[in-house]
């Protein structure tokens, strides 16, 4: 469900599958491990292969955002699917989580 890639100063967590109450714990665990390994300066969560996310999944992403920004890191999210963008827009998190439509855009953040 999650794969991790290091590129320059960024750690990219690519997620696939639904991030609902079933999938969110896997993403949470991955992010805890990534953040424990530490201090990459830019965390990118790539949700472009996530067809669905709910408040549980958004909570996991927001928790990672808080951890990264608390240590003065950069944080970006990639999202393209209708359902994911819908929740991010509706909750007003599009700007806070620095949502972009492609990984290249996120890397330039």
């Amino acid at each position, binding site marked *: 469900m999650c794969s991790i890639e290091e590129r320059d100063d960024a750690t990219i967590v690519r997620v696939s599958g*639904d991030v609902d109450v*079933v999938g969110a714990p896997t993403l949470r665990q991955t992010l805890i491990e990534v953040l424990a390994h530490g201090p990459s300066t830019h965390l990118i969560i790539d949700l472009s292969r996530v067809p*669905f996310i*709910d*408040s*549980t999944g958004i909570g996991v992403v927001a928790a990672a955002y808080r951890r990264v920004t608390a240590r003065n890191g950069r944080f970006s999210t990639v999202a393209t699917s209708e*359902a994911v963008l819908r929740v991010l827009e509706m*909750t007003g998190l599009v700007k806070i989580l620095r949502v972009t439509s492609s990984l290249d855009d996120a890397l330039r953040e």
Partner: protein
Amino acid sequence: MTNIAEAPEATGATPRDVVVITLPANSAYLSVLRTATAGLAARLDFTIDEIEDLRIAVDEACAMLLTQARPDAEITCEFSLDDDGAISVAVSVLTVDGQQPSRETFAWTVLSALAGEVDSSADSDRRVTITLRKQGSGPDR
């Protein structure tokens, strides 16, 4: 046990169709319910955004109830496809505590923002129900 029962096809005199879906109260079945919800919303000519809203709202309501469901309980979703182009959904489950979901949670905020009309109730037998109603804009409205 998964069981999908559809009311008889409307003949023109029937004002609405009711679809009842009963699933084990297990999060593994949430994706099945989301797919069914999207299919029903599409039947009423909901727009893509409205379908997404309803799909997420039903998921949120069920996920909330699953946290307090009795072991081996079934979750029941009753969809009323109204003739004014709205869908009313009642999601209910027998719970361990009979408590209505807190309205102070992020999940409830998301649910009410997406569905428009949302309410909850609890019976004396500790069955907790979340009801929501989503009006579609549809091509004819």
